[in-house]
């Protein structure tokens, strides 16, 4: 009965060849002492790190171009605003990185963002206090992710279909709860929304940025420095081999989707704070932004390759495109989509030639 699945996995010659490299090479710059310069250079140009370096160079180049073109562009605050405006997307991209590195995909994140916002707004307006609402929303996200992971692993359904169903379910539940936008007037939420943390140089960040940075740090630690993280890479490289190696494939796969669900809920709360409302129609298509950011950040959609910091850079690049368009003033919003599409193309083709050709 399982022949279909294994045929697909073992029938492709490239997966076997790529596996041993995947888990071994990725978290390269972790050795204690300073490596020789050639070794460091080799790390930077390895197929797994180079896309992230390219993204970083692109980001710097774009920022430089913006600074040359517009007067007030070159400032710390413009840079920090990228974090402030995209805090929720950063969190989503971290969760998405886990899923994509494991070889899966999660289409439900945008809907879970909306659901989290709507649930929070509804409960707050019904008189709940902020803390239980936060806990409940996080639990809902975690549970949805966990359920999807369980279905994907134990019933062997494709992640694409399962998370698509999750996307419809979460979005539908939003409408069941409320079709109209619900404003949030809770003191804690408004305090966080209006709060700003001053930084040197007359700049500031919002509390949401702190949350996003913490999520990135925790995500990077878990994916790059724990046994669980190694297992995620191994599964993405070749699930069959990972099973044969005796790794806990099932538990890891389910956990990956639970992490993405949790990140979606955190992202949803950040978005609710950012917009101070819960609305069923918010964050439509955000899953695509998260996927695009992850891919631009150097993560391979076939799994096994990717860095959390790359996804962060991916989100910043997307944010920078928006900033460009708002600075330009006369450019229409659809150019954002066209540029993101072109960037996706460049990075996908780049990865194609960096990673060895399958078949």
């Amino acid at each position, binding site marked *: 009965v*399982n022949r*279909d*699945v294994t045929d697909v996995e073992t029938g492709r010659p490239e997966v076997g060849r790529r596996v041993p490299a995947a888990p071994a090479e990725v978290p390269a710059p972790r050795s204690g002492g300073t490596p020789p310069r050639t070794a460091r250079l080799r790390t930077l140009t390895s197929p797994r790190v180079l896309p992230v370096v390219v993204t970083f160079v692109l980001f710097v180049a774009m920022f430089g171009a913006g600074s040359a073109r517009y007067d007030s562009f070159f400032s710390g605050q413009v840079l920090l605003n990228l974090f402030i405006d995209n805090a929720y997307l950063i969190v989503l991209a971290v969760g998405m990185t886990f899923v994509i590195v494991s070889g899966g995909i999660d289409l439900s994140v945008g809907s879970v963002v909306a659901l989290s916002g709507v649930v929070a707004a509804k409960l707050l307006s019904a008189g709940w206090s902020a803390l239980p609402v936060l806990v409940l929303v996080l639990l809902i996200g975690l549970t949805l992710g966990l359920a999807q992971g369980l279905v994907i692993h134990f019933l062997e359904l494709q992640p694409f279909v399962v998370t698509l169903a999750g996307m419809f*379910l979460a979005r539908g539940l939003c*409408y069941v709860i409320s079709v109209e936008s619900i404003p949030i007037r809770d003191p804690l939420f408004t305090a966080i929304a209006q709060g700003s943390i001053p930084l040197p140089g007359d700049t500031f960040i919002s509390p949401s940025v702190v949350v996003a940075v913490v999520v990135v740090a925790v995500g990077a630690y878990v994916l790059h420095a724990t046994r669980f993280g190694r297992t995620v890479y191994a599964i993405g490289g070749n699930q069959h081999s990972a099973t044969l190696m005796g790794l806990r494939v099932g538990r890891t796969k389910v956990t990956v989707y639970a992490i993405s669900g949790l990140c979606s809920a955190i992202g949803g709360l950040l978005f609710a704070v950012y917009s101070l409302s819960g609305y069923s129609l918010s964050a439509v298509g955000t899953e695509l932004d998260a996927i695009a950011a992850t891919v631009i950040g150097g993560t391979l959609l076939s799994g096994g390759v990717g860095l959390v910091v790359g996804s962060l850079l991916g989100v910043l690049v997307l944010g920078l495109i928006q900033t460009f368009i708002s600075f330009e003033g006369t450019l229409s*919003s659809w150019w954002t*989509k066209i540029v993101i599409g072109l960037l*996706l193309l460049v990075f*996908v083709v780049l990865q194609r030639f960096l990673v060895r050709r399958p078949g």
Partner: protein
Amino acid sequence: MSPDSLGRLTRSNLFWPVLALILLLAFDAIVTPGFLSLRLQDGHLYGSLIDILKNGTPTALIALGMTLVVATRGIDLSVGATVAISAAVACSWIASSPDPTSGGAALVGALLALALVVVLGAWNGFLVSVLGIQPIIATLVLMTAGRGLAQLITDGQIITVANPLFAQLGGGFVFGLPVSVVLAAVLFALVALITRRTALGMLIEAVGINPSAARLAGVRARGITVAVYVFTALCAGIAGLMISSNVTAADANNAGLWIELDAILAVVIGGTLLSGGRYSIVGTLVGALVLQTLTTTVYTVGITPEVTLVFKAVVIIAVCLLQSPKTRELLRRRRPAIRPEPVLEGVGRP
């Protein structure tokens, strides 16, 4: 019916989607008396069934192309954007032509739109087969950029057209049936005929099972891959013309929004595996009808239309679970092998 044949029937890939369709229609017939009735008015057929067919046509048409793409172990996320581009090109051409009501303008506009979407399909096929990029990401590029392109073409406006010939495609009737339905039916029949009466269908499946092996066996895997993406884009282009003709306008933002997901769902519900190598044209047709009937049912019963999504999710999960080999294995293990009666009950409560 003998126990053996009942068992074989429930194992058939078409059994559950067809059952779902029958149950939905039966439910509608009970809740809304006269749901199944058709009436002839001015030589045209009217009725809820015709509405289901007509509203489901664009999705079904795109799902037809998607079936072949999925059979090659691919996926095309860009069809929604292609719908928007096709609608935008046709309507912009017609609206800006010297005589926006002439049949010539409609023809040239439609042909221009279809020519452009063929190029877009070839582009997807090029990325997938020549550059070897995974289909989901290769078509994600056009999915993201395409809607932007459509907005660029329409300059962000909704372009309305009043062209009698163009309006025929989405609103006209032929032999008492809507033009779009007849056109889609002809395309379905053609594809079923061409892929199943020649070796083409088998070659497509061979590419889906193992592209390298197919190539080594002398199958032109590259050409076939490009061809299925071009065909899907063409289907999406025609669907785009139908949608814009039906509302006599091109809305770059909303035309064909999320239609790729519905089309993929129709394919999956119809029993075609996303892992490729096997497909069912009839299954896809049934899948598309199930989706549309579900939407119509929710409307008829008077539930808030937005809640359709919840029902859709439930149906997807149910159908996928019932089709999953793993679920069947679990169910088989749980009950004694040869007992006919509990087959249906047992499946009902997994």
